[in-house]
C-alpha cells in the first residue's frame, strides 16, 4: 500500500488512464504550465505534452462546452474546475448539454466526460467560494455524482469515472488535497461507481456522511465509542447512483439514522436520504431520522461564524445520542 496525498491519488488515476487511452485529455484553468491551482496535475504537462494537458482562459462556460463537444465527437475529456463554485457560469453546459443530449438524441451520442474539482467549504472564503453543489447536480438524471473522502477512493473511483460513458461530476475538497492515506497497489485499481463503503461497523446507530462530512461522522463514532456504543459509519462515495441497499441494510440493523451533510439543508442530499430511508425502512426505525447540515445561510467570512456554519462532530454526536434516546 502506497501512502499518497489525495491530490497525488487523483493525479495517479488521471496519469494511469491517460497512459492507457490516447483519447483522454485534461483541460482547465492553470492545469498545465502552472501545474494545477492545487497541484493536482503537477508534472502532467511534462509527461503528456500540450496536446493533452491544456490551459484555458477563464471561460468555464466555454471550456465546459468544449469538453462536451469533444466527448460527443469521440474523445474522453477530463475538465477541471478550479472550484465547483466557478462552474455556476457553466451550469447550462453541464445540465442542458452533458446531462440531456444523449436522451434528446435517442441515445445516438454518448458523453464520456468527467468534470472534477474541489467542492464545498474551503475556509474563510465567504459566500461565493464555499458552496456545496452535490444536491444541485444530483437533481438531474443523466449525471453521475461522485464525492470522495480519501485517497484510495479518489483513485479507484476517478479511474472508473474516466471509463464511464456518462458524464460524471467528481467532487473533491481543497481541505483534503494534502490528506495522506493508503492507496491500493493493485494494478489497474478501480472501484465500481454506485457502491457505498462501510467504514466502521456497529449496531447502535447508522451515520451517513460523504466528503468532509464523512470525517465528522467518524469523529462522532469515536466519541460514541468512548460512551460504549458502536456506531456504523457509511460513506456513500457516490451520490448518484446511490447505494440504497447498503444504507437500508444498516438501518435495519441499527434502527437509527443520522446524516451529516455540509450542504445547506433545504432539498439537499440529506433530505433525499431521509425520504428514501423513511420510505424503505419505516417499520425498522426506532426514532425519527436526524441530520446535521450547514446553517441555512450563505457561508460567512468571520472565523467564529464560519466554524459555527459547518456541521460539527459534536453536533453529530449529539444527534446520535438523541436518536438513541440517551439524552
Amino acid at each position: 500500500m502506497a501512502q499518497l496525498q489525495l491530490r497525488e491519488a487523483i493525479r495517479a488515476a488521471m496519469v494511469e488512464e491517460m497512459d492507457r487511452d490516447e483519447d483522454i485529455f485534461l483541460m482547465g484553468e492553470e492545469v498545465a504550465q502552472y501545474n494545477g491551482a492545487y497541484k493536482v496535475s503537477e508534472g502532467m504537462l511534462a509527461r503528456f505534452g500540450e496536446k493533452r494537458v491544456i490551459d484555458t482562459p477563464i471561460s468555464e462556460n466555454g471550456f465546459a462546452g468544449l469538453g462536451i463537444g469533444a466527448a460527443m465527437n469521440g474523445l474522453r475529456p477530463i475538465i477541471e474546475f478550479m472550484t465547483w463554485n466557478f462552474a455556476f457560469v457553466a451550469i447550462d453546459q453541464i445540465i442542458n448539454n452533458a446531462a440531456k443530449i444523449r436522451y434528446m438524441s435517442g441515445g445516438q451520442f454518448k458523453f464520456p466526460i468527467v468534470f472534477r474539482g474541489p467542492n464545498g467549504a474551503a475556509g474563510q472564503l465567504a459566500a461565493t467560494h464555499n458552496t456545496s453543489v452535490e444536491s444541485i447536480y444530483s437533481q438531474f438524471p443523466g449525471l453521475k455524482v461522485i464525492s470522495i473522502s480519501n485517497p484510495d477512493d479518489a483513485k479507484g473511483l476517478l479511474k472508473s469515472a474516466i471509463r464511464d460513458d456518462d458524464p460524471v461530476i467528481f467532487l473533491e475538497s481543497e481541505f483534503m488535497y494534502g490528506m495522506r492515506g493508503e492507496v491500493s497497489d493493485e494494478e489497474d485499481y478501480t472501484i465500481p461507481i454506485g457502491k457505498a463503503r462501510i467504514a466502521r461497523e456497529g449496531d447502535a446507530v447508522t451515520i451517513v456522511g460523504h466528503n468532509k462530512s464523512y470525517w465528522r461522522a467518524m469523529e462522532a463514532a469515536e466519541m460514541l465509542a468512548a460512551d460504549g456504543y458502536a456506531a456504523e459509519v457509511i460513506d456513500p462515495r457516490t451520490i448518484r447512483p446511490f447505494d440504497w441497499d447498503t444504507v437500508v441494510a444498516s438501518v435495519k440493523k441499527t434502527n437509527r439514522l443520522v446524516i451529516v451533510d455540509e450542504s445547506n439543508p433545504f432539498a439537499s442530499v440529506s433530505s433525499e436520504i431521509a425520504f428514501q430511508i423513511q420510505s424503505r425502512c419505516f417499520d425498522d426505525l426506532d426514532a425519527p431520522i436526524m441530520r446535521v447540515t450547514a446553517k441555512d445561510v450563505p457561508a460567512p467570512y468571520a472565523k467564529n461564524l464560519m466554524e459555527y456554519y459547518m456541521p460539527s462532530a459534536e453536533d453529530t454526536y449529539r444527534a446520535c445520542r438523541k436518536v438513541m434516546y440517551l439524552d
Partner: protein
Amino acid sequence: MASETRKKKAKAKAAEGNGAEAKAAEANGKVVEGPEQHSIEITFESYPADAYTHEDLDLSTEDVLDIYRNMLLQRRFEERSAQMYGKQKIAGFLHLYIGQEAVSAGTARAMKIGLDTVITAYRDHGIALALGMTSNECMAELFGKATGCSKGKGGSMHFFSKEKRLFGGHGIVGGHIPVAVGIAFAHKYKGDGGVCLGFFGDGAVWQGSFHEASNLAGLYDLPVVLVVENNQYAMGTSVDRAAAEPDLYKQGVSYAMPGALVDGMDVFSVCKAMRDHIAMARDNKPSFVEIRTYRYRGHSMSDPGKYRTKEELEAKKNQDPILRLKGYILTHNLADNDQLDEIDEAVKQEVMESVEFAENSPFPPLEAIYEDVYSQEDYPFLA
C-alpha cells in the same frame, strides 16, 4: 508596451486635466495635445447575391436541379408541418425555417457530408433535410413517433443524426456554440480531416457563450466555421434593437478570426462562401461568417409577427431564395417550367408520404422513457 501605454495615458490626462494649466499653455504658444487617435482596419470578405453562376462553382445542371429540389423539399416539408401543427398532430414548439433554405442547401453543397459535422439551434429542419436525413424520420420526429430521428425524444428542436453527422438542434440560445468548438477540437485532436460547422441565430451573438467559444476557437486554432444565420429577428427583437454593433460579421475581429458577410438569399453565394471558409477550417483556421437571410414566418407557431410591417415582408418575399433559383434555372435554360413542376409534384408526394409514415408509426413504448439516459434503478416514482 504596458509602460508605454501608461505613459500615453498620463500625458493625455495632463492635457485634459487642468483647464487653467491648459489655457496658460495655450497662451504660451504651446500646442495642447489630446489623446492620440488610432484606427483599426477591418477587412472582411463579401459574398453578395448574383455574383456567382453555377459554372463558377463547378455545379452541373443536375447539381443545380438537386439543390432546387432540396430547397423545395425543405419548404414543402415545413408548410405541411405547419398544417399538421394546426391539426394537433405536432405539438410543442415548431420553428419554421421558411425563407432560409438557401443557407442549408448551399452549405450542404460545400461540405463533406459524413465527415464534416454540423450543429445548429432549434430551427433545424432545413439543415437536417439538406444533409440527406429522410423526410420520413424528420416528420416522424415531429409527430413524436418511435421511428423519428431522435426516437420521439427530441421533437422539432432536437433533430440528431449520427450517420449524417448532425450533432443536433439545440434549444438554449447560444448554449451549443461551445459544443461546436469542442466538436472541432476533437476533429483536430484525432486528425480526422473533418471540420465543424456551427450555426446559430443573430440572437445568440449576444450570449456570453458565443464570445467564450469564439475566443477558444481562435486561441486553439480549431477547424470550425461559426456561422450566424442572421434572419434579422431574435424572436420579436430586430438586430438593431439588440446589437450595439449591428454588423455582426465584425465580431470575429476580437477573436482573431476572419469575418465574412454573405447574402443568404442566393444559394450560390452561400455555397461559395461556405466552400472558402470550410477550406480555411481544414487548415485549422477558424472563421466567422454572417449570412443575412430572412424568415418569412413567425418565430414559432404562436407568433403573429406583428413586429414587422407588411411592406418589409413583401419586399423580402421578392428575394425568396427558391423563386430566385427558379428564375435562374429558367433564364439559364437548365430546365423548363414543366420539369420544375414535376420536381414540385415529386417533392409534395414525398412529404405526403412522410406524413403517412409518421401517422402510421408507433409511439415510443412507455419503457422507452427510461432508455438512453443514466437513471437511478430501483427509484419508484410512486413511493
